[in-house]
Each structure stands twice: as C-alpha cells, then as structure tokens.
C-alpha cells in the first residue's frame, strides 16, 4: 500500500515535492509585531488560509441549521406569527437574533461573505501560481530517488543517453510533460486536477453572485385567469406581487397569454376515486408586445417559459356564470364569478357583488350581494350536507343567499372579493322571515322576494386557473455555474497529479543503472501501477543486463524490510 501523505514528506524531497498542488502552505499563527500594516497582512493571511476556510465552512453549516428548525418568514409568515404568539419570551429574542430570517441575517451573511472573500483571496494567488507551474518545467529529480513513494531500478547495457531518450519519448507519448535535465528525465501529468479545482472554486463564486442577483432582481406574482380571459404581464394585472429590492417594474417582460380552456381529469372509481390524474391549462400566448400567437399547454411541473419568465399552473376552480336582473328585468350584472375551493372535491364558496346599475322597486340605487356555495357534483336532494362528491362538474349545483344595501366597498379598505361584508346589508327574507336562499341547477333562476329582481345560474359553467408568473434573472448563470462546478469537481477529485523521474547513470562497472520513481500528491494506489507499467515499457527498450554477481544481501534486505511493501497490483 502506498501511504497517506504526511506533513513531513515534502521536506524530505526538496524541490521535487514542491507545488504538487497550489494549496496554500499552513503557517503557524505567529502574532505579528509590525504596526497596522503587519496586522492587516496577518489578518489577510489567516483569512485566506485553509484552516480558516475550513472553520468558515463549518460555521456555514452550523449557521444554516436554525433556519431549518425555526419557522422562516420568507417561507411561511403565518407560522412565524404563530410561533411568536406561542412563545412570548423566545419570540422577541429570536427576532433580535434574526432567527426568523436566518438566510438574510447579518450574521449568516457575514459568514458567507467572509468565506467568499477568503475564497477569492485563495483563488487569485493559486491561479497565478498554477499559471507559473504551467509555464515552468517539471522539477528535476531529487538526489535520492529511493526516498519516493514508488521506486524501481534495474541494470542495463543500454547507454544512459539511450535510456533517457526512450524515457522522454515514452513519457511524452503518455501525455506527460517531460523534460530532460543533466542526468535524468523529469515528467509531470494531471494538471487538469488543479485546473478543475480552480474552476470549481471560481464556479462557486459565480453561483453565489447569480444567486444574490436573482434574489435582488426577481419578481413573482399570482393571477387568477378565467377560461376565455387573458393576462398581460404588467403590474396592474397581478392579484398579488412580490419582488426583490432592485427590481424595477420596467423589467417585466411584455408578454400576453389567454386561458383557452382548463382540463382536469380524475380517477373515476376505486379507493382513489376523485384523485386528480391530469391538470392542463391550454393557453394561447404571444411574446413581446405583439408577437405572433402560439399555443401551449401548461401542466403542473411543466411551466410555460416566455420572454425569460416562467408561468406555473398553481391552482384551479369553478366560476359559475350568473346574470342579475333588476325589478324591470334589465340585466345589471353578468359575469362568471370565481369561487374558492374548500375541499379536494371542488366544493367552493365565494361572493357575488353587484356594485352599481341596480335600482330597487322604489327606484333607489342599491347594491346587491349574494353568498355563493357551489358543488361540482351534488349528492342529490336530501342526501346529507351540500358537499361535493366528486371534483368534476358532473352535477353542478349553486346555492345562493341574498342581501341588499351597501357592500361597504367605498370605505377605502381593500375588500376580500370572495367574502361578503354584510355589516351594512339587509337580508332578503323568505316567507318565514329567514334569510332568503335557494339551490339552483344550471339554467335555473332565483326570483328575489317581492319582485326585487332575479339571479340566473347560467348553463355555461366556466373554470379558472391560478398562475404564478416568476422571473429569476440569475438562474441561467446559477445553472451554468453549477454545471461548471460539477465538471471542475470531477476533474479535481478524479484526476491525479503525479510526477515521474527516470535517471540512468553509468555505474563503476560500466553497466547503466536505471532508476525510476513516482510521486503523487493524492491518495491513489494507481501510482505504483502506473510506474510499474512505464518501467515495463522502458525495460523493453533497455533490457536488464545479466547480473554478474547476484547480491544476496540486497535480496534479503528487500524481503525483511518492513517499510518496503510491494505495491498492490504492481507485482503481477
């Protein structure tokens, strides 16, 4: 077995063992005595040392932990609030320590910024050093090749020059960088390891910058779109919108799409009856302000990509179309009203608000409001509660209850469109004096009491879909960085950098002694194998000379020596 590299090894080998990597050499943290500059220098050296990089990495992983255990406000604001309500002492403390925003907190940022400063401080000199190594020559052979981790020797009748020439050719053919010096050939291979390592670390910086830029420039908004309706990507069209702090509304890509129709299919039978099988939103979209129209279907996991934005299908529901008439029979409201699903089977609730146009029998302006309860598949009259039995619209029923008065929308407070604010409204009453309500089948009409008008549940039942539209500008860079990182990492971990020396010297008896030795930086068993293979090839060109007097001592020494262990696979 070849041994793990130990600290003392390089000292043994002098120049030959140097710079087999560009890893910074560790220095003991001697405190400087030289004023401010000295201190700054010392601090920089510490920061860019491997030891500090290691500690910062450890801190980074430790620092990430609380964010996974404590609710985070960028993930779930409600949970954070709930946590604060339940822990009145811990809550404020956590707040102070920014534990609800770990990943944007000062201390977490400090760790990774330090790490990345350290990384840059580490990469720059290493890159220079590496370029220097590429332009330089492989270091010459150490005096005593026997000290190297893998070693072999034999005696040959070939001339030393011949051996050197053959070695040089062989090593070059094996894509070593090889160089002939006074008495030996020096060769090195596997520079891609170092290159890969540098690429990997640089890619990390690219990823971080892309990630940070993405956070600052991103935007994300939601929009509910009815079948037949369209959406243009401008701020005013969004139902809700979030963006990074450097985002500018001009950055919104000017595309447009229309929801042609929404399709949902569901398991019809078995224990999973009602489980959705497919959701598909068929849209027509156009890129830019007035690009050509194209068709596409958006599915869960399959967003539409347009103009650098992605449109995700997030949810769906039903929108019964209703028509409201005033006492004279004039149509005052006609719309499909989106209702919010409240269970897996599509049971949905919402509100219908007639804001203007309606005049009551006396001719006074009034507003109308209806609480709506909808089931796509009704169980049937008298069969328990009015909850849907199946998510598809097989037996749709709309239940309405009616109010009149003021909807309270003028007060300036934003209103939930799915809820009726009945504080300033009066109930329509039935003959028993109860709230007036009725279940409607498609096509049916509910006449309001005392000829106050009517509301019709039209046959044309619409569906709606909600979309999330997001723009994450850095993501291409992040992906590029990530792929480069993997490639670099693979190079860094799978390629071995190693050196081989061949020395041929004429001995006192006129026979040439060939010595070959190899040194690898990394922990590989391959080096002895490779050396053995090279030696075998070279041996063909410079075969062993007959040994005049076998040396029993040397044989014995090699057998009993505890430090000389035949390499795995090298003896075959």
């Amino acid at each position, binding site marked *: *077995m070849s*041994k*793990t590299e*130990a*600290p*003392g*090894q390089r000292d043994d080998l002098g120049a030959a063992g140097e710079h087999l990597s560009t*890893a910074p*050499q560790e220095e003991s943290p001697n405190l400087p005595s030289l004023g401010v500059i000295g201190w700054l220098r010392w601090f920089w050296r510490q920061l860019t040392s491997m*030891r500090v*990089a*290691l500690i910062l*990495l450890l801190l980074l992983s430790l620092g*990430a*932990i609380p*964010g*996974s*255990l404590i609710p985070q406000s960028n*993930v779930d604001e409600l949970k954070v609030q709930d946590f604060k309500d339940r822990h009145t002492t811990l809550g404020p403390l956590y707040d102070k320590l920014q534990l609800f925003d770990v990943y944007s907190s000062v201390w977490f940022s400090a760790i990774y910024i330090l790490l990345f400063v350290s990384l840059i401080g580490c990469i720059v000199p290493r890159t220079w050093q590496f370029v220097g190594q590429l332009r330089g020559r492989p270091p010459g052979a150490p005096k*005593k090749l*026997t000290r*190297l*981790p*893998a*070693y072999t*020797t034999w005696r040959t009748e070939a001339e030393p020059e011949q051996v050197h020439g053959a070695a040089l050719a062989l090593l070059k053919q094996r894509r070593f960088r090889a160089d002939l010096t006074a008495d030996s050939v020096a060769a090195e291979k596997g520079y891609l390891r170092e290159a890969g390592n540098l690429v990997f670390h640089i890619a990390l910086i690219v990823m971080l910058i892309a990630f940070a830029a993405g956070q600052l420039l991103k935007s*994300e908004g939601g929009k509910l779109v009815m079948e037949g309706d369209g959406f243009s990507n401008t701020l005013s069209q969004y139902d809700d919108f979030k963006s990074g702090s450097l985002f500018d509304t001009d950055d919104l890509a000017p595309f447009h799409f229309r929801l042609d129709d929404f399709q949902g299919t569901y398991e019809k039978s078995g224990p999973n009856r009602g*489980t*959705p099988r497919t959701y598909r939103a068929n849209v027509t979209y156009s890129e830019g302000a007035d690009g050509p129209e194209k068709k596409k279907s958006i599915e*869960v996991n399959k967003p539409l990509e347009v103009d650098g934005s*992605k449109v*995700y299908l*997030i*949810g*769906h*529901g039903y929108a019964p179309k209703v028509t409201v008439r005033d006492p004279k029979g004039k149509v005052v409201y006609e719309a499909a009203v989106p209702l919010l699903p409240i269970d*897996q089977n599509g049971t949905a609730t919402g509100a219908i608000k007639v804001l203007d146009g309606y005049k009551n029998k006396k001719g006074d302006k009034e507003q109308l409001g209806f609480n709506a309860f909808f089931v796509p598949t009704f169980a049937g009259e008298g069969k328990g509660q009015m909850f849907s039995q199946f998510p598809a619209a097989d037996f749709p029923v709309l239940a309405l209850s009616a109010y009149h008065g003021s909807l309270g929308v003028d007060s300036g407070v934003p209103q939930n469109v799915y809820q009726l604010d009945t504080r300033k409204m009066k109930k329509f009453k039935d003959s028993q004096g109860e709230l007036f309500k009725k279940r409607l089948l498609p096509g049916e009409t509910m006449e309001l009491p005392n000829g106050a008008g009517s509301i019709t549940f039209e046959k044309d039942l619409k569906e709606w879909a909600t979309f999330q539209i*997001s723009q*994450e500008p850095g*993501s291409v860079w*992040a*992906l590029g960085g990530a792929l480069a*990182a*993997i490639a670099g990492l*693979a190079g860094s971990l799978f390629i071995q950098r190693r050196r081989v020396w061949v020395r041929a010297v004429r001995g006192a008896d006129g026979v040439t002694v060939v010595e070959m030795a190899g040194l690898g930086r990394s922990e590989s068993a391959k080096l002895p194998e490779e050396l*053995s293979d090279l030696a*075998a090839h070279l*041996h063909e060109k410079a*075969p*062993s000379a007959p*040994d005049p007097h*076998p040396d*029993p001592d040397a*044989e014995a020494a*090699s057998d009993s*020596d*505890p430090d*000389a262990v035949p*390499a795995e696979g*090298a003896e075959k």
Partner: protein
Amino acid sequence: MNLAATLAAEPNEDLAHISNVLIYSAMAVYLLAFFAHMAEWLFGSRSKVARTAAALTPSKTAAAAPAVAVKAKGGTATLERPQVVTRSVTGSRDVPDGPGAAAGDEKGDLYGRIAVSLTVLAFLLEFGGVLTRALSVRRAPWGNMYEFSITFSTVAVGVYLVLMALKKNIAWLGLPLVTTILLDLGLAVTVLYTSSDQLVPALHSYWLWIHVSTAIFCGAVFYVGFVATMLYLFRDSYEAKLQSGGRPGKFATSVMERLPAAASLDKFSYRLNAAIFPLWTFTIIAGAIWAGDAWGRYWGWDPKEVWSFITWVAYACYLHARATAGWKGRKAAYLALIAFACWLFNYYGVNIFVTGKHSYAGV
C-alpha cells in the same frame, strides 16, 4: 388547492402484496447471512494468523528503514518486468492489512462464502421487492420513507456486491453491513410502512427519477464510507496502542487484527466519499432544477434543501480537512462522521420532525 400535492396513480394490490412477501423473505435471508458472518468471525478467532502486533512492535518501527532497491528476481539475468516497491511515508504506520474475518481458518472461510452467497440471494429478493413495489404503484418506488428505505438498503448491498465483484478488499464490510440492513428493513416494515394505496403525491416528473435515484445512491455510498470511517477510528486506536507498547484486550485484538490496516480503511473511506461528492453536488442541483419547475423557485431554504446543503458543506469540510495540514487522520474522520450524521438527519429527521414542502414521508 395546490395541484401538485394531489396527483397520484392507482396501485395494484396483488403486486404490492408480492412486494411485501419478497421484502420479508429478503429479511429472513439477510438474517441467515448475519448468522453465517457471525460464524465466520467466530471460527476466524481460532486462527493464529496475527501479523499486526508483530509489525507494530516498537523496536522494529524504531529502526530506520534502509533504502530499498529491488533487483532482478532471484538474481537471474532476465527480468519480466521491473518490480516496483512502495515506500512508507514518514509519519505513517506501515502495517499490512489483516487477513480478514476468517483469518485463514477453513471453516470460517466456508461460512464467509456462505454468508456472501446468502447476501446475494437476499439482494435479489429485495431487488424484486422494490421492483414489484414500483410496478404496483406504477411510478418510481420513491414516494415515501418506506420505499426510500427498502431502495436504500438494496442499493447499499448492491454497492458492496459490486465492489466485491471488482475484487476489492472489502469482505470486512459484510457483517456490519448486513447488521444495519436488517435494522433498516426492520424499521421500514414496522415504523415506516406505508401501504401502497396510501399514495402521497405527485412527484410526477422525470426529475424524480434523476434526483431521487442519485440521492439514494449517494446515501448508500456515503453509508459504506461511514462504516469504513468508524472501523478506521477503532483500528487506528488499536494500532496506536500497540505502537506505544500497550496491550489491547483479547477480544479487541482478535477482531482488530483481522481488519485492514488503519491507513487502508482511511484511504478507502476517503475514496468513496470523494468519488461520490460530485454526484451529491449534482443531486442537489438536479433537485434545484426540479424545484424550479415544480414550485417556481429553484432554491427556497426548505428544510430538506437546507439539510442537503448542510450535508454538502460538511462533506466539503471533510475534503478540505484532508488537504489541510494538522487536520488529517482522526480529525478529518470525525468530520466525515458528522457529515454522515447530517445526511442521516436529512433522511430521517427532516422527514419525521420537520415539516416542509418535502413532507411526503407518509408516516
């Protein structure tokens, strides 16, 4: 209603039943393999092949090793191929690997081979169990923790058998591996069991195949690396004790001297961890791409994402430690243990104790 959380397919009950039978059979055969390994170790303890102690007696190591030159074999004139010698590096012990569990004892060796054959059989049964489970649910069999666990142990044994087939010196892994596989399967069929019709969600995407399969594979390799690291720590203290002239207990000696040398174990675990690290990096990136498609953001600090990241950084720490003077050896090994603990927590802990978007544990 969140659409992504509700898509699912209908299972096939018969296949699900066959799958369960196969998994239980595999457990029974693993149990037999476990006993066979025990017999191997027991018979092996009778053997008198013990070399470690001899190699480490202080007087010998103290002697400075002379430079070695290997000459032509037997001093004859012709040489097939020059023989390469490797030289120990200053500061590390030079100990041959132990002879293995059976330590040359014939009966022990027989039981060892029986154990491996049984493991192969159990592996095939378990593989069949995973396959029928996949067929029964008509999707990748990675929808909940029960399915992760059976796949995970199948892959871990697969890794072991492949290394075995490649003639790597890893017979020592047999007993600890089979033991933990039994534990893993025991947990899977009792605590984590999820009947196949209780389908959680729609991981409907080809990224499921890519991301989850590489995650499970990485886990299996990290696990084998972890076992090697543990054994390295034990063996290292044993060697250190011998070196300093101490006398480890009889039992410890009997077990430890049959293991590979500390340096070999250390290197083995390093190679596994290092080789799999790029794939782990890829796994996280694949997950981010998938999250980008499924949830509209590629990275959102979801607990599972956080712990994958922590695991990744912990393994990066370990690799850095190996390259940093003063951190090699035991200190680096401790980091490897911590990194694996992070992986384990990500696997069990996050699914069970923490809720997030990845909560499809099904327990």
